[in-house]
């Protein structure tokens, strides 16, 4: 912190420090409450991948937060894939005969995850998947 005679500069620098420490405070608060966030991905799996990368993490909170971020990734991709699936099925039904029965069963319709739905969802999250053109 630079000490100067100008009071306005001091107050703005203090304000900047407050802003910079806010995300850090939020993160530290999150770490203290991580015990309540039970992830679907086990902590042992996250610890295994940390070990494979050469890390020897002792803090269980770091392991837990990595597991929770993996679960969030899965959930985001699944929701995006479901939107793609619904769009595809709606376009198929509207392009077809379109009877009253189809309209009634929108809620009861079954959604199957297919590669066609998953590929664009993964691409939005930075993972590109390409199928080979043919097998030799």
């Amino acid at each position, binding site marked *: 912190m630079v000490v100067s005679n100008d009071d306005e500069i001091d107050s703005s620098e203090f304000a900047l420090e407050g802003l910079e420490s806010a*995300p*850090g*405070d*939020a*993160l530290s*608060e*999150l770490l*203290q*409450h*991580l*015990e*309540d*966030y*039970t*992830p*679907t*991905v*086990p902590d*042992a799996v996250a610890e*295994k*991948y*940390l070990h*494979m*990368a*050469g*890390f*020897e*993490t*002792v*803090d*269980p*909170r*770091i*392991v837990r*937060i*990595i597991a*929770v*971020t*993996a*679960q*969030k990734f*899965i*959930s985001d*991709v*699944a*929701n995006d*894939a*479901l939107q793609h*699936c619904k769009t595809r099925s709606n376009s198929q039904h509207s392009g077809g005969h379109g009877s009253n029965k189809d309209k009634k069963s929108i809620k009861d319709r*079954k*959604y*199957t*995850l297919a*590669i066609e*739905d*998953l590929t664009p969802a*993964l691409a939005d999250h*930075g*993972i590109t*998947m390409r199928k080979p053109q043919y097998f030799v």
Partner: protein
Amino acid sequence: MPRNLWGEFKEDEKTQQNELTKMVPVSAKRLKLSEVQNQLPAEVSKNVTVKVKNPLVTQTIEVMKQTEMLQSLIDTYSNKSGTSNYLLNPCQMIPEVNFPPENVANFVTDDKFTKPIWFVPPQDTNFAKGVPQHYPQITSDICRASLRKAVCGQMRVAGFTDTAESALILFADACEEFILNLMQTIREVHANDQKLETQRDIEVKNLEKAYYSMTNNSLTQVHNYFKHHLIAKNRLEIAEFNGVFQEYDKLMKESQSMQKEEFQEGDFMNIFEMPSTSDGNNLAMQDFSNTTTGNISNNVNIVNQNTLINLLDGQNQITIQQQPQDGGTQTTVDLQTYTTDINTHFQPQE
């Protein structure tokens, strides 16, 4: 002349080393081998259980299944008319399904996720302090299997009912790729700093930098994900289940009440038999003479003036059972003359 060798061992050291390297006769080895064979080492099997279970996700999936089951029962045994459901067949009772109330128990206390995170005091546990915990050593195959199971659970919560096997494997591999990319990004963050380059421990600020560079989001979004996606979906499914369960309970009670009412055969046959009274407008059995046919007297059971007229709607002729004094046969009377006779008979009594 004795030679002085460089590095020669002293006698004390020689005897110790000779004891260690001395030859053991084969006969002694046989004794040892027989002892070892008699006392075989006990097999130690190490089983490690890796739990892939999230109470919220599991409960959400179970509640969704129960809601579907109840809805299918309602659709099978009832018909929707307007906003209410009516039983299709009153004689057929709806099968009773019992769901324990613990299935929709609230796993999350309201304080944790409704109030801002800094309002809730942290619990003083080993986990909150960062005390190291023991994790079981697992192989890569088990990691992939765990990821597949986690992916299936999350897909079911999202709304998928089925999945192609290739899509499931792809999804699990993509999740593994995401975690490996995150590790690589953390390594890049460490590599940018000379002090951190050889550090094997991860600090939360470096993890935040790596996650932000990958996803352009903060790690604090995890809290929002839990609150606005996972818990909200759980509450929504429980509310939907409660609504469907109330509807099912109403139909079940209606079905049970219908089954309790006992119908007798005579009730159907005697429905038109009414007790005789002096009031002509009520149910009465009356005899009156038909003046149009002359000397023939007719005995007609009259239920009600209005009822009889309604019954005669659409009929032009009516067969009257008569007891002729002459011993004649049944005759048919024209409707108009018959109704005029009824009106003339009932009018004085009204």
